[in-house]
């Protein structure tokens, strides 16, 4: 890729990140003019960059966003939620384009910004329909009520749901969501962008806007839609009052906060956790509503502290501090000090750092083989042995330091991954109507960049599970004498060479007998095996593929993705995840990750008399099955595991080793390859080891099925398989 494009990618990525942050900030504090100008600048600079590299589609898309923002500025109105949504959609598209450029090294020639343009055009139209500048566009509600006059009187909630274009790919069925709404009265379906002709329709791309009238409350509708409620506008149909102006909001907020302080002071002698929690939640919500998220977070943290310590002082002080602060408090602009700090860092491409990491890896291997030579020299009684040994020790120390320094370059604090979770919990807790606070600790713990970036997804799953399955409904909690506001703790700490992240909830705990029952029903193991398992072992069943299905979980957690996905993702990073639970008290999921990803974990297998390594990150499980459960499919073979047919290859056959024999009784390795399962039969399964993967060069480089090689301590070479190629 040429230098200009490389620079464009780096800068655009930074600008997109910044713009997303600023847009979200603006959503919380719509009056913040500085934020607004930041957003505007970011879009403008991005567009400029696109112009320099002559990327017309990106220029066009950003131009629309800029227009929408400029219109808001010209009319000196707030940027609407619709505009913010559109701007975010525009940035999403830009990110897609940037990834394409990164992969292909060129501007995508067929990039198309038409749908983004259409998105903004629609936003502009609806802006014109609006009667008052900051009113939400609700003409669709009137249309819907008029079209379904018979259903209108019973309607409590109107819904406009615009699923993502790729929702079909995500195994989402928007209509099934609608069909599942409690108290559904009327449905309408229209195109999101004008319908194409039938022959131009992409049947796998969702272009629907679904509107519906429902007899249940907006909260129930949001809960039923689960995750998808982000893509929906949910409006109460009756009793819609105009939004109060800023001044009266401020006055009301101050009154509410004062009332909370009085409540706390009254309870000072014997504070009840439930009361403290609810005061904390109310105060935090009020502050958040005012766009003062920093103070809101402070209050939430202080509430947790007050509950833990059984005294009201921390919360009282936090609320008092928030009341004393001038309102609204805009987010402080970056200070000169920050800029200075920026000047002290240099930007290095990730590729160069990876090259450094690779070279360090090779140096470690070279050093290890030197230790072999030292041993040999000692055995031969050579005079050089002592000198060699000393130098080896010195080299060892330096290489270890170098390794640490190199690994340090790729280190990020986990805060980068954690920062989006408070928002996630807030949204989910509202959707599920389960009040909960997230208490984060150890966010300064550091880990390799690859780990920090990849751990978000599994943690989202764990947090969802905690809130959805772990935390009980408010009434159940009250009956059990627990505080009505649940606490989910996300903590991280370093443990030797590992980074540990724990997600702990104070919910009901996991019912192990229920786990056994479900596992038996789903035939994950033979019933007598499940019955004989220790509780600890039985609890581990929830990590098996097939334990969780869409049928048993709610919309929020239930995309058919369960704890097996978490375990797969974590083990891909070379880590482990396990669960501890105490009935009635809560559950802790513990994720243990390596600090760095410099080494690869492999499992050795033997086939046709040769030793190979299989990267552990792709291995789902190993098992033995009876011969007659392997059946032929044409010229190939397959096995059926938990009602899934999995293609099977015999490693010895594929690699055509000398002593290839038709042994079909060997153990089978089940591997996950690009979302598909594949099975490989080997003669023997060996040990696990840490290796430094070296890419193949020379004669071997063209060999299909091999991912690389690794030097063993005795100087031997272990060939590492690329199972995706082997199975093809």
């Amino acid at each position, binding site marked *: 890729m040429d230098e200009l494009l490389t620079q464009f990618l780096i800068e655009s990525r930074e600008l997109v990140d910044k713009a997303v942050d600023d847009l979200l900030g603006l959503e919380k504090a719509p009056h913040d003019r500085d934020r607004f100008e930041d957003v505007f600048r970011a879009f403008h600079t991005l567009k400029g960059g696109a112009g320099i590299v002559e990327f017309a589609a990106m220029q066009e898309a950003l131009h629309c966003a800029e227009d929408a923002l400029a219109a808001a500025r010209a009319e000196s109105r707030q940027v609407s939620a619709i505009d913010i949504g559109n701007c975010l959609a525009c940035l999403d598209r830009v990110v897609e384009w940037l990834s394409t450029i990164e992969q292909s090294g060129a501007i995508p020639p067929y990039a198309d910004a038409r749908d983004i343009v259409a998105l903004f055009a629609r936003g502009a139209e609806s802006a014109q329909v609006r009667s008052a500048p900051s009113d939400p566009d609700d003409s669709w509600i009137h249309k819907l009520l008029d079209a379904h006059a018979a259903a209108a009187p019973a309607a409590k909630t109107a819904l406009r749901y615009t699923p993502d274009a790729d929702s*079909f790919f995500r195994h989402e069925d928007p209509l099934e969501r609608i069909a599942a709404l409690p108290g559904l009265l009327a449905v309408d379906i229209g195109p999101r962008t004008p319908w194409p002709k039938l022959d131009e329709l992409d*049947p796998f791309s969702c*272009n629907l806007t679904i509107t519906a009238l429902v007899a249940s409350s907006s909260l129930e509708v949001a809960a039923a839609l689960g995750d998808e409620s982000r893509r929906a506008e949910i409006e109460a149909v009756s009793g819609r009052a105009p939004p109060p102006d800023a001044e009266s909001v401020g006055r009301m907020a101050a009154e509410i906060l004062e009332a909370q302080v009085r409540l706390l002071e009254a309870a000072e002698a014997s504070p009840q956790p439930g009361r403290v929690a609810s005061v904390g939640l109310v105060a935090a919500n009020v502050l958040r509503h005012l766009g003062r998220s920093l103070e809101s977070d402070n209050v939430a943290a202080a509430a947790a502290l007050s509950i833990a310590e059984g005294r009201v002082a921390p919360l009282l002080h936090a609320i008092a501090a928030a009341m004393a602060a001038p309102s609204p408090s805009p987010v402080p602009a970056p200070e000169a000090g920050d800029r200075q700090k920026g000047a002290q860092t240099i930007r290095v491409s990730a590729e160069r750092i990876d090259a450094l990491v690779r070279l360090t890896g090779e140096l470690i291997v070279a050093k290890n083989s030197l230790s072999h030579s030292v041993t040999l020299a000692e055995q031969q009684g050579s005079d050089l042995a002592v000198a060699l040994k000393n130098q080896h020790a010195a080299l060892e120390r330096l290489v270890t330091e170098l390794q640490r320094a190199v690994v340090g370059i790729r280190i990020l604090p986990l805060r980068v991954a954690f920062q989006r979770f408070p928002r996630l919990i807030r949204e989910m807790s509202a959707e599920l109507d389960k009040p909960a606070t997230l208490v984060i600790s150890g966010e300064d713990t550091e880990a390799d960049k690859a780990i920090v970036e990849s751990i978000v997804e599994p943690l989202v799953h764990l947090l969802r599970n905690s809130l959805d399955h772990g935390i009980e409904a408010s009434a159940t909690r009250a009956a059990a004498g627990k505080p009505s506001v649940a606490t989910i703790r996300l903590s991280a700490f370093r443990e030797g060479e590992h980074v540990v992240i724990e997600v702990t909830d104070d919910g009901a705990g996991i019912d192990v007998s229920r786990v056994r029952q479900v596992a038996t029903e789903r035939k994950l193991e033979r019933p007598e095996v499940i019955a004989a398992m220790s509780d600890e072992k039985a609890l581990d069943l929830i990590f098996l593929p097939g334990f969780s299905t869409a049928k048993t979980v709610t919309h929020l957690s239930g995309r058919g993705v369960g704890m097996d996905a978490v375990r797969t993702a974590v083990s891909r990073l070379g880590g482990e995840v396990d669960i501890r639970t105490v009935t009635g008290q809560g559950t802790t999921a513990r994720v243990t990750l390596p600090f760095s990803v410099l080494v690869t974990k492999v499992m050795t297998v033997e086939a046709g008399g040769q030793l190979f390594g299989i990267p552990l990150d792709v291995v789902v499980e190993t098992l033995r099955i009876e011969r007659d459960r392997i059946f032929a499919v044409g010229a190939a073979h397959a096995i059926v595991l938990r009602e899934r047919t999995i293609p099977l290859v015999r490693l010895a056959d594929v690699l055509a080793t000398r002593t290839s024999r038709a042994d079909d009784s060997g153990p089978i390795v089940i591997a996950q390859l690009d979302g598909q399962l594949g099975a490989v039969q080997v003669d023997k399964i060996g040990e696990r080891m840490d290796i430094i993967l070296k890419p193949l060069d020379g004669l071997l480089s063209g060999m299909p099925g091999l991912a690389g090689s690794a030097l063993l301590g005795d100087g031997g070479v272990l060939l590492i398989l690329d199972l995706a190629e082997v199975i093809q």
Partner: protein
Amino acid sequence: MSVKVSAAGVIELSGRCGVEDAEALQRHLLAAPGATVEWTGCEFLHASVVQVLLVGGPRVRGEPSAEFLRTYIAPIVGRTTK
């Protein structure tokens, strides 16, 4: 397969029509513009299949067995008939 073309040239949707049936339905509708779609006995239509019906606008006849389809989707599909 839940999308079939009968001897009389009628496109039949039956049982559960998943996302994989959308493309098949689109193909049939393109191959025989003006064909009638029969959905008696249809228990479930994925949104992608409904989308093809809305874009293609074929004449749809019969009564699906799922209440959601009968009550909510049939009027919408009927409206778009070209």
